[in-house]
């Protein structure tokens, strides 16, 4: 049995075309031993939910710089839930005003990472979140 890899979808929903941040994160996660599926810019929420399903990812990492996060994140989470992917951990990076962070977490975004976040923090967050989920999901003795 091989070691189970953490699979992460890195996607940029919406219309802004700046994907440098997303690429830096994707590269850092790759260097941390994760399998990163990178889908590029201008993805619709439907495209992201579909890719998450087909790729069976543990994490969906969204990068949004356009200010449309309050519209896009709920839609993506709704689509993931509609296809019974409630267990997928949704993370958000980009320019996110402080006052939006709490409402986003209420909606189901597990982590919000603004400018200046160290990639180590994101990697740690993902490792802890997937570990916690695996412990919770797999009954002891299986």
């Amino acid at each position, binding site marked *: *049995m*091989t070691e*189970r*890899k953490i*699979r992460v979808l890195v996607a940029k929903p919406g219309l802004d075309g700046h994907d440098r941040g997303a690429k830096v994160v*994707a*590269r850092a*996660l*790759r*260097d*941390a*031993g*994760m*399998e*990163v*599926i*990178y*889908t*590029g810019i201008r*993805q*619709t929420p*439907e*495209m992201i939910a*579909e*890719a998450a*399903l*087909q*790729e*069976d990812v543990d994490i969906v990492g969204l990068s949004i710089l356009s200010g449309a996060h309050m519209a896009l994140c709920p839609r993506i989470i709704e689509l993931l839930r509609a*296809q*019974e*992917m409630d267990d997928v951990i949704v993370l958000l990076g980009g320019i996110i005003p402080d006052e939006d962070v709490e409402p986003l977490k209420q909606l189901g975004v597990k982590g919000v990472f603004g400018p200046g976040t160290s990639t180590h923090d994101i990697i740690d967050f993902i490792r802890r979140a997937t570990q916690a989920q695996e412990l919770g999901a797999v009954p002891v003795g299986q």
Partner: protein
Amino acid sequence: MVLDLVEPLLAGNRRALAKAISHVEDEAVGAQQLLATLYPHTGRAHLIGITGAPGTGKSTLVNALARAYRAQGQTVGVVAVDPTSPFSGGALLGDRVRMRDLAGDPGIFIRSMATRGSLGGLARATSDVLTVLDAGGFDRILIETVGVGQAEIDIASAAHTTIVVEAPGLGDEVQAIKAGILEIADLFAVNKADRDGADHTAMALQMMQGLAAPQAAQSFGQAAGHHREPASGNRPSHPSAHPEPGAQDDGSWLPPITKTVAIRGEGVDGLRDWIERHASYLRETGQLTRREVARAHTALKSILADRLMADLLASQADGTNAATLVTRLAAAIARREIDPYTAADQVLAGAFARPLGRRHDG
């Protein structure tokens, strides 16, 4: 648990399909049973390999081919393989970037795979993932290899039809591919054919074909049931006499050289039609069966090799774990205290203390 996926998977549930692929890819507990249960439901899909150097446009061509098949109403599974980092074990799988046209189509399913240490252009679990997609009912499955150099030819034993993608302006491209990749092609696609040098590239490939005597092209055929039966082999061998590509009178297959501009979809319908002609050729000549046997042979031997190695390393000899012994001997080899072959004899002499090859995961 894992077997609960079978029924929804066979009924077309995409979530179950995706989960089943993960189990197989991770070689998770129950994956073997899952594959065994799915296996009777396979054998319907035509498996199409797409290989070539990095940057020749494989992903874009897969995107265009999938659309061309959808236009005819066939469902398409895609497996896109990218390399795993040998240092971190991580991977960046970026083929979906070129396949965004395929989003939202329920007749298409795309899965990205990392090689996870495999060196032949595919991942070790790729053929098992093909089994799952085949059981999922897709009519055609496109397998995109990593960007390859010269010798990554695993695709030839995994696919029914292998397309080698070339592009103009990559330097001395034909020299680069002549040894391994050229020989496994059932079809050539000169992609980016709107660029300067496309004719030159196509002509260079044609010249290579003209130079290949029939008996020279049979080597892979014997190893993996591939094309061009040695047979009578009286295809004109004069370099300047180019026979029509496709099925030959002597039962062999001369790979056609097609030109495509995948990003605009040009030439892609023609390529799709050639794939279908090749599929018919395989069926009508009985080659399909031979390739299936060769595929099974390769898969079986690789399973045996994996299991024997795992058991060997887990075995005990004189109270020493064989894996530990291997590590110790490697250091001794590096110090020139022992040669590698004698070291292998030592490991094997202590092994086989118990029956080998049994599955341990229950």
